[in-house]
Every structure is written in C-alpha cells, then in structure tokens.
C-alpha cells in the first residue's frame, strides 16, 4: 500500500522543520510526534472479527488487523477484495513458457547474431538425429521455466503488493504490540483514512468495547 502522505499525518510544527531536523528530532527530543493511528486491543478471534466487520461497515478503509494466528474469515469481515496475485502468477507462467520457446529456438534452431553486451550467436547443432525444432525435447526446459517464473512471480509480486520488505512500522514501537504474536488481537485505524478524526474515531473504537485504546505515533 502506497503511503500517500495525507495531511492528517503532519502537524503544523513538523511541516516547518527541514528534512534534516525532522530526522534528528522525534518524540524523545520533545517535538510532538505525528499521530499515525489508533489501536484497539481485543482478547479473542470472535471479538476482533466483530470489530473488523463494524469498522468496515462504518466506512473505514485504511485499517488493519494484527492477530497471532490466521483467523479464518477475517479477510471477508474486513471487506478485503480478493488479491490479483493468481492472475500475475499465471502471467509469470506464460512469460516462462514463451521464454523457454524463444530461448531454445534461438540457441538450437537459429543462426543469427545479435549484440547483448556481448556478441550472441544462435548455433544449430545436430543432437542424436533430432530435428532442430523438436517439441518433445523442448518441453522440459519450457516446463521448468514456466514453473520458475510462476514461483518467482508469486513470491516477488506477493512482497511487492504487500509493500515488503519493510524494516519499520509504527505499530512496532508500541510496547503493547508485542502481544500481537502471543495472545492479543489488535485493530489499527490509520490516521490517513479520510474518515479519521481523533475524537470521532476514538469514540467509535470505544463502541467496539476493546480492552484498551492506544495511540500510535510515527
């Protein structure tokens, strides 16, 4: 997800600082930090499921749930649309399929040169009497390249679509958040959500009856 840097994140104070000062300053230096979002804490999958449903129903879109194990049906409760990853993987496979054909056609069945950083030349070679273009012999390479590019595509696009690798996330600074890998379920509404205002969102969160509501700063 792209960080659009909407105005909700910036305080008037920080906007007057130069970028260098921004980096060196921070909460410890006494500068009021930017509000990044509000975090509600729950203690059961059923509770966060219900909270996610209501948050989506209330119109929030920039929110996320952090849970210690996969909670089936949470995606649907949050109103997350199905990923386009399968289509990208299929296209990756098609690319591998085509690349396998072109690679073998050029190396085994063509005789022209071209320059790609170094000179490259197709070199037809008679192997056990097989024709230069011979389908069955090409299938293994085509198959493997199809698998390779599908797999690399799946992993690569998954990282890219998730905005990974990402070494820092504002939730990680909150001491309570460590329990997201243990026994707590957190729902975070980000300040960049168009519906977000500190007071209203906090009131809404309170209506979800969480264990606690925390403030996240960037």
């Amino acid at each position, binding site marked *: 997800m792209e960080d659009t840097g909407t105005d909700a994140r910036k305080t008037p104070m920080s906007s007057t600082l130069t970028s260098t000062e921004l980096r060196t300053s921070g909460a410890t230096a006494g500068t009021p930090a930017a509000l990044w979002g509000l975090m509600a804490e729950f203690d059961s999958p059923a509770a966060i499921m219900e909270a996610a449903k209501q948050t989506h129903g209330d119109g929030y879109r920039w929110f996320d749930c952090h849970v210690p194990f996969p909670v*089936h049906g949470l995606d649907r409760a949050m109103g997350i649309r199905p990923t386009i990853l399968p289509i990208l993987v299929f296209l990756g496979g098609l690319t591998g399929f085509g690349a396998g054909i072109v690679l073998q056609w050029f190396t085994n069945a063509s005789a022209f040169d071209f320059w790609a950083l170094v000179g490259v030349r197709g070199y037809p070679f008679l192997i056990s009497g097989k024709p230069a273009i011979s389908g*069955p012999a090409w299938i293994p390479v085509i198959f493997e390249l199809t698998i390779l590019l599908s797999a690399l595509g799946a992993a690569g696009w998954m990282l890219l679509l998730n905005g990974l690798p990402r070494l820092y996330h504002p939730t990680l600074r909150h001491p309570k958040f460590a329990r997201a890998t243990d026994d707590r379920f957190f729902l975070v509404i980000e300040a960049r959500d168009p519906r977000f205002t500190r007071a209203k969102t906090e009131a809404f969160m309170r209506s979800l009856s969480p264990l606690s509501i925390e403030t996240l700063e960037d």
Partner: protein
Amino acid sequence: MSAAHRHAVDSNSPSVRLGPIAQQVAKAAFAVAGIALAISVIIAVAGLFGTTAKGAFKSWMVAFLYVLSICLGALFFTMIQHAVRAGWSVTVRRIAESIAANLLWLWVLFLPVFILVLIDRGGVLFPWLKPEYMATDAIIQHKMAYLNKGFFLLRAVFFFAVWAGFAWFFWSSSVRQDESGDVALTHRMQRLAPLGLLAFALTLTFAAFDWAMSLEPHWFSTIFGVYFFAVSCCGFGASMCIALWFLGRRGKLLNEVTSEHMQDVGKFLFGFGIVFHAYIGFSQFMLIWYANIPEETGWYLARTLGPWKPFMWALLICHFAVPFLLLISRHAKRNRTFIAAVAVFLLVVQFLDIYLLVMPAISGADLASAVSYPALAARAASGDLDLGFHPGLIDLTCVLGALSLLVGLTARRLGQVPLVPVRDPRLPEALAFENM
C-alpha cells in the same frame, strides 16, 4: 470458527440420507447395465460388425480397467486421508469409501478374462500365452518366469484379495463408527492406512503390468504403473465431483460439503488427475522418443501411426490442455456445476485414455520388416498395416454396462448408511473447514 458452523450432523437428517433416491438410481442403472451388457454379449457371441473374440475381449478389458481405475482411485483417496489424518475431507470420505467398496465384487468383472486364461485360451488376449510364441520368441521365453499362466492367475487372485480386504476394512470400520462413535476405530484406520498404501502401490503397479502392459509383451515401461495410478486418480476425482453435484441437486450434503470442500476435491482432480497424469504420460513418452531404441519405440509407433495419431493428439489436448485451463482458477473449482461438467468431459476422455492403452497393437513381424520410419508410416497411412484400429459399438456397450453396474451398486450401498461419517472425531473440523 464462527458460530454459523454446526459441530455435528444428525444421522437421520434427510440431507445426509439418500432415501428413495438410492433405489431410483440403482434401478435405472441396473436397467442400463442389463441392456448394455446383453447387447455386448450378443455382438460378441454372434460376431456382429466383424467382431472377433480378440476384439470383444479387448473391449471388455477397456471396460474393466475403466471401472477398476475409478475404484482404485477411491481406495487411494480413502487411505491417504487416514494416513495424513486429514480433517477437511471427513464430509466427502463416505462417498470415496462407498466407491472403493465396489472392490469387494469387482473380481466378477474380471472373471471372463480369468476363465479365458484358465481354460488355456488366454492367447486370444495376451500374445505371451500363445503356444507358438512361447516356443519361438526368445524375449517371451526370458519373461516366462513372470509371464506364465499359473503365476498370472495367482497374482490376479492376490490383487483382488488385497483390494477387497482394505476396501472392506475402511468401509466397515467407518460404518461401525456411525453407531458406536468409537475413536479407537479411527486410530486403527490410521495405523493401517500406510500399510494399505504400500500394498496399494505394489498391487496397482503389477496389476497394470499384467492386464494392460503385457498385452504387448515385448514392450516394457517401469513408469507404467504410475501412469495407471494417475489414470485412477483422474477417474475417481471426476466421479467424486459428479457425485457431489448430483447429491447437491437433490438437496443432499449442501451444508456438509461447501465450496471449500469442492475446491479441495477440485485440487485433487486438477493436481493428480490432470497435471500429474500429463507429467507421467509425457515422462514415459519423452524418454522413449529421445532414446529411440527399437525395443521401446514399438508401443508408441502403434499409437502414433495411421488412424491412432489424431487420437493421441486428442488425448494431449482434451486430457491436459483444455481441462488445465478450465480448472486452474479457484473460482472454477468452487463452482459445483462447472467442475461437474468438466468432470463429465474428463470421464469421457478417460475412456479414450484407457482405450489407447489397450487397443493399439503392432505385430513383431511388421516392426522387424520395417526398413525406415517413413516406409512404416506410408504403410500405416495406406491402411496396409493392422494397428488394432477396429472401433465398434461393443466398445461403448461394454463400458456403459460396467460403469452402470458400478453406479447402481454404489448407490444401493450408499442408501443404507448416512452420506457422511456422522460420528467421526474430526467431523467438526470438516464442517468448519475453510481454505483461507
């Protein structure tokens, strides 16, 4: 997870009881089976349409292997679920168990072949049982330690005993659990499943060698058994999809088997029946094509020359390319009607697949006298070469009869029990199953 999921199934609920449907299906199926088998016998005995004894027995072999593959696939599915202690599959397992239970009587369909060999007429079907071959053919003489009448019949008895034993064990244990709810039964099935899988792999491999590969006794392929295993998975996976669609149409198992289960059954059909099948089929072909050794290529020459060539292409396109693209999406697998339609198509193609295993043949003399591939291809194109291409009505009536018998007896068996193992300890897990 959510409260919407039920945690138990009432064994008397109409959604898990076939009720009168069982008898309706069985009656219709037995009628079709009776008519089809009667027509087959008339064609074979009267020799209509130029049907020879060899042709009739080969047609029967196709039909027998067709229903056998479906039942063996079902037995494999049942055992693998226990071996890995699968939770999701509990609600569809009863259907697999009931199809596999047909292995208790399937030996009856093998009797014609068994008796043929027993009365020393096996040469009609198996060239290696012809006395003149045994006397003169050096290759067959070397294989006679394995390919001989007594051992062949003994193996057949052994295969059916093993399959019937395991099919009965898993069926009866599961049905007994419906009454007692005894978890010890599950433990015993789990303990025996790996042993069953081992026995299954060996018996299926050698049965495929005996009943399909030895039809051309000079030829050999070590991967042949694996190919027949893939055929079995395809046959069973497709049958399961059609059964679930049919039951759904009659209002059965709609809450017990959701689109989540359909997706996983679809994965089994897609993975084993389509992709793995093509992978094994191509692996066998490519090594023989590449090495190009005369003693191995004969089998493929018979299948890629003359009238068979378009059928081999049809197999590649209809058994792999088309269903692969149709079923690759999860939406396709989750749609009961769509996947059942593809499954019907696959069951038709499976007939072609087994037909191509059994029917094409090229004589050793024709192979030995061929001077070059183009010369052989020219002879095949002119129709001068007998490649075993004699399609006839009896091919269809045999398979229709055998398949109808299978459907009728499965329906009758299923009519006596709940459609899901109602007291399986993992039933709640299956009812709550979600892919993601």
